């Protein structure tokens, strides 16, 4: 299994005059290589919280999160960062490309924490190849500000793939794109899932994108229910 959630719950303590609330209630599911799921649900239903817990950016209040069979609860911040760097790829709603870097440099940012020089060379080749595959080979020296939203989001996908992760987590990846770009990105993610045997979780409001995944889950009032196969 790439990722496994056992009875994961998340609640937020009261803050000032706001009362405490349960965001996730005893979530159980697992993903193996090549699996892809989409999670849908109304705003504030806890979709992003679930994704963050999967991505080790947040910790559950209760339950166990296993990544590659390992319970990550005891991991240090450094170890969690390593997992995010080498086993997980993130795609956010906003592309969050760094404005100070060119496209190719942005894509290579995840390779910075890895000190192996040979790996950096290989990563550069891979970046070029991936950018070519998403149609951005001619824009490698452009800055994010010079590119369209769709191009930026595709670049984000390449950045997420650069360290060959086993798991891709996408948080509303098409949320800020026009319909054509959203369609293209959905295809791209689906293709990556198929061709590269990568497990994928996409949190989305878009039914089109959700349908491109193997399974669709609905998160409502903290409960996760599968609504198709």
């Amino acid at each position, binding site marked *: 299994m790439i990722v496994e959630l056992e009875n994961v719950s998340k609640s937020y303590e009261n*803050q*000032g*005059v706001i009362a405490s609330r349960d965001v996730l209630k005893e979530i159980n599911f697992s993903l193996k290589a090549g699996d892809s799921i989409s999670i849908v649900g109304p705003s504030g239903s806890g979709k*992003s919280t679930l994704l*963050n817990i999967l*991505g080790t*950016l*947040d910790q559950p209040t209760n339950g166990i999160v296993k990544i590659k069979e390992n319970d990550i609860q005891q991991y240090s*911040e*450094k170890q*969690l*960062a*390593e*997992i*995010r*760097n*080498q086993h*997980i790829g*993130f795609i*956010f709603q*906003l592309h*969050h490309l*760094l*404005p*100070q*870097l060119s496209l190719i*440099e942005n894509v*290579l*940012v*995840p*390779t*910075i*924490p890895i000190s192996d020089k040979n790996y*950096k060379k290989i990563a550069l080749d891979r970046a070029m190849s991936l950018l070519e595959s998403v149609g951005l080979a001619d824009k490698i020296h452009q800055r994010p500000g010079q590119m369209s939203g769709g191009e930026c989001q595709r670049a984000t996908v390449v*950045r997420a793939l650069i*360290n060959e992760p086993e798991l891709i987590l996408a948080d509303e990846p098409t949320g800020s794109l026009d319909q054509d770009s959203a369609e293209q990105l959905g295809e791209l993610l689906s293709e990556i899932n198929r061709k590269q045997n990568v497990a994928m979780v996409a949190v989305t409001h878009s039914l089109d994108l959700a349908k491109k995944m193997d399974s669709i889950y609905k998160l409502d009032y903290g409960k996760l229910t599968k609504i198709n196969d």
Partner: protein
Amino acid sequence: MAIFKFILRSFWYFRKQHLAVLAGTIISTAVLTGALIVGDSVKFSLRQIVDARLGSTKFALQTGERFVRSELSNDISNDLKIKTAPLLHLNCIAINSESNLRINKAQIYGVDQNFWQLSNKTLPDLNDDEIIVSENVAEKLDLKINDEILLRVENANVIPLNAPFAKESDPSVSFRVIIKEIANDQNLGRFGLKNIQSAPYNIFISRDYLAKKLEVEGLSNVIIASNNLNNDLTSDDINYSFEKVWKLKDAGLLIRELEDDFEILSDRIFIDNPITESINKNFKENESILTYLVNSLRLNNRETPYSFVSAASSKYLNRSLAKNEIIINQWLADDIVAKKGDTLELDYYIIGPLRTLEEKTNNFIVKDILPTQGGIFDRNLMPLFPGLADAGSCSEWDTGIPIDLDRIRDKDEKYWDEYKGTPKAFITIESGLELWQNKYGNYTSVRLNKNISNLDSLKKGIISVLDPKDLNLFFLPVQAEAIRAASSGVDFGELFLSMSFFVIVAGILLTVLIYSLNTESRNAETGILSGLGFHKKKIIKIRFIENIITVLIGGIIGALFGILYNRGIMHALNNVWQDIVRTNMLSIYIKHSTLLIGTFSGIVISLLSIYLVTRKKLQQPIIGLIRNGSMISKKINIRENHLYKILAILSYVIVALVVIYSLLTSLDQNANLILSVSSLFLLGSILWLNLLFNNSKFKHSNSLGFNQLAFKNAAKNKGRSLAIIALLSLGTFTIIITGANRKTFYESENKRESGTGGFQFWAETTLPILNDLNSEEGKNKYNLTDEPELEHVNFVQIHQLDGDDASCLNLNQINNPKILGLNPEELNNRKSFSFARLLDNINKIEPWLELNKTYGKNIIPAYADQTVITWGLMKNVGDTLIYLNEKGEELYIVLAGGLQASIFQGSILIADKHFSKHFPSVSGSKTILVDSKSKEKTSEILSSYLRNYGIELTQTSERLSQFYSVTNTYLTVFMFLGGLGVIIGTIGLGIVLLRNILERKSEIALLLSLGFSKLKIIKLIVIENIILLLIGLKIGIGAALIGILPSLLSESFNIPSLYVIALVLIITISGLLWIYLSTRFSIKSNLIVSLRNE
């Protein structure tokens, strides 16, 4: 991708943000480095002054009121193979007769070529009527080479002027001389043995000529010495050599060869007690005799005037004698018709302070009558009183006591012709000591039987048992002491660091604020990096390295600006702030190590700020950073809120209690306490504000006014708002407190409890005033009797032992300041001056009388200005200073109390009775306090009649204001730099404002879309920021008003209100300007675009 490439890209992309961090780093580094260089420069300059002052002089023997052979210098030089020079050093008055310009406190040095050679200087040989003057003398008297100058030099007296029967000679010797050369600082023009940075007025003259003029040929009172070739000579070595080569003459002794005895006499008449004690101890067969001049020997109505009476032991008298018995000679018996068993009356004078004479009478029973001369009645027993011993007849007598020539009969003249000063009577030595022993010595001669030795052996024998230290004669390592004093004095580095505190804080605050804002604007980037697998340490490292470039550049530029800052301060110190340093000899000295330390400190402070801010920002949840890129409000801890509330209330309660307590007891005595709690008020207010900001976030109300909205907006970025308020309030607080502490005079100088003691003048004379100016006799001596104006003038005459000036006018650290001996009763009766601190056991109602006490053998109490104790001496009340008295004994002076700022600043005050006991040779008074109702007339009379004594009258208020000017200048510097810091701090206000507005573009755009006019939005923003400005000012002013409450309620309070108001206004205007500029700048941009983008 390499990490450094990433860092460089980021650095370049965010270069504008880095520029602001750069500015902050430059400011703090520049001020830090500049202040440190000021410290080095002042130390270096003081060290240079030491070199200019001493040349190659390493050691000096200063004999005080004694004299040694000039030849002693050669003897030591030959013994140690070092360069030495004998000097004759005296005070003098220098006058340019043509222009009537004069210098009352000039120093005259009788020198020879040895003096110049000692420091490898080649100045011309001086003929008798030639002098070399220092540059400042030539300047002040407006004289040049070959001009004539009139000198009035203090008379050199081998016999202390206050000693019994000391001849009253002219106090000064005047002569005209020609200026042959003007000595600059490189040619010892600044020569002086006192540790002070200000230049003395020096005059150099041929030593032989000066000695001849003063009738002290062959004598000197200073010997200076250089080091040996190996540069390893110690003061022990030179003192050992001194002890080896010194002679009887150096101790003021001479030996007279009598028929059966050798007689040891002193050129000071009375032999110093340590000498007689040593001789008594080491030579068994000796006879100590005391001979005194009595006014009359009387039996019934018959009396013999002016006769010598000796006191000797039974052994010398060859018979036992009771204490109340007397042996008289036949001449006296015949004169007053006395026989054995008669009771004689013996009248004699006792000399008190300021040559006051008290006639006393004692009765003695005639035990025996012996032949007029021969046997024990020896004419050699008369001491060598100048004016007596050499008088041809009684009418030629010239003594320190009044001689009524009418009383002298022909038979007395005949006795003088025939028997000279042969004593007419003998009493026991015990009685003699009881009656006539005095602080100068107990005996007038010591006789040793010739059988014990020959003259040469005796001389050697005596000198071998004497120790020069017993006469307070020893070489001091003056150069080492001067270097110590120069290097451990006021640390201007520390001083300017603390005075630049606000500028440094402003620089750091700017760095932190700007960097913090920059980091917040890059929150999303931080979140993404975390999401992409960069752990926290890595992100801190990246940010750290990215900023190192900026900070390093900032540090280097800052250090260079530091040099400029230093130049500015040094220029100010040499000119407008010269009151602090009292010299214009300060030069800039830049040490590489200081530059490095300054740069390094500036860099470290900035990097530390950056590290702490980055670390703090990374404590926020990553996902929050990624999602909205802005700060997520810190969770408010209810407990923490309660704690703030309790602390704030507690602060206010303490402040209230202290103020009430002080109002009920004494505001003055609790001034420091009130000042402390005023800062507590400031702290409490900021805590309270923190609480209000926290609460405003959750306070629900059904209506929302402009002010409420503005306050809520200010609370949104609580940290930024509080930082601005804290800086503004602290700055305002400091400026007002500093302003209120400036010392001023407003009719308070006439009060006796003030620092003037209620005296109008502080008078200093170059030549000592030997008599009591309050007495008729004293007035008569100085021709003051014809001035009715002086009838109501009261003089307090003070003895003075020269020492270093420990006032704030001296930058050196002083160990043994000048001692003033005064009459405690006089000040006690007047209730003059006030005390800042007293030892617990001292009577607080009559503290002056404490000075009369003795705490043990050679342990006496003393007072000094509290500022002198704290800063000049770096001591506390209760600490002890160690001096050597004239007997070479250690004198422990306990600092029993500290005076409020007074005219005595720079000196140690002891009772005159202790002064006379321990420093008997110091004659007369050179410091006089004058209490007069008619200032102008008194000043005119005293200046005129005591002109030849070099009198300088200073109004006490002027003297005090001179000391105050130092404090005030420091306060001005502090206010100036503090104000500068706060003004820089208001730039922070502008930056925060700009940032807030930029962050809230969409909010502002929304308000526009909701129908708010631009004017209203500007109003909202301005109110929001004026709230910060006003709260800061209010808290600062409030705390300051509490702090200065004792001054506010005092009658004499005066604050340089214009100065303070101007500074507070500048801060306010500067703050308003930044608010206006930022608001205008942000509103100008197209806000609707922002809304559309959202």
